[in-house]
């Protein structure tokens, strides 16, 4: 029963999704909103701004380093959570 309801809902959502996908900028074209001034600065300026050849690394650990700090925290959180779930701990 719940399986049928879920399938029905997903089909409904799917139809709307097709309409939404048709409105999105075309995949793979070089002049979508995504390839704008933001991406340009990362591609052209990363080497002089951060000194790293790999632009992904320069974004991850320099331009958006704060995100990566929090990402490391996510990992830390999950480790502490696993401890809390599985271990008895010492007194």
């Amino acid at each position, binding site marked *: 029963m719940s399986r049928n309801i879920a399938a029905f809902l997903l089909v409904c959502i799917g139809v709307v999704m097709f309409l939404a996908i048709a409105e999105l900028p075309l995949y*793979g074209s070089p002049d979508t909103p995504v390839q704008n001034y933001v991406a340009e600065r990362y591609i052209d300026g990363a080497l002089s701004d951060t000194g790293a050849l790999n632009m992904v*690394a320069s974004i991850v650990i320099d331009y958006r380093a704060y995100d990566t700090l929090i990402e490391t925290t996510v990992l830390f959180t999950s480790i502490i959570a696993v401890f809390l779930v599985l271990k008895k701990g010492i007194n």
Partner: protein
Amino acid sequence: MSPQIIDFLNIIFLGFLVVIAIAVSYVRDLLYAAILLGAYSVTMALIWLLMSAPDLAITEAAAGIGMTTLMIAVISKTGREEE
């Protein structure tokens, strides 16, 4: 490679992803399901390579295999069969 070939390969691999995702629902043996998850990650890593994201490819492959390892470790304790 020309963009058309890349598109073609992309579609094949993406179709493969969908097949794996559906297969997970029908496999009764959990070990197979976990291995399918590993295959999912590796296929995805191939797609990242085709979409020129090597960083993501290496991370996805490593993370996927790591998760499959942990999952198999859990399955080894809880049993393989899905009722």
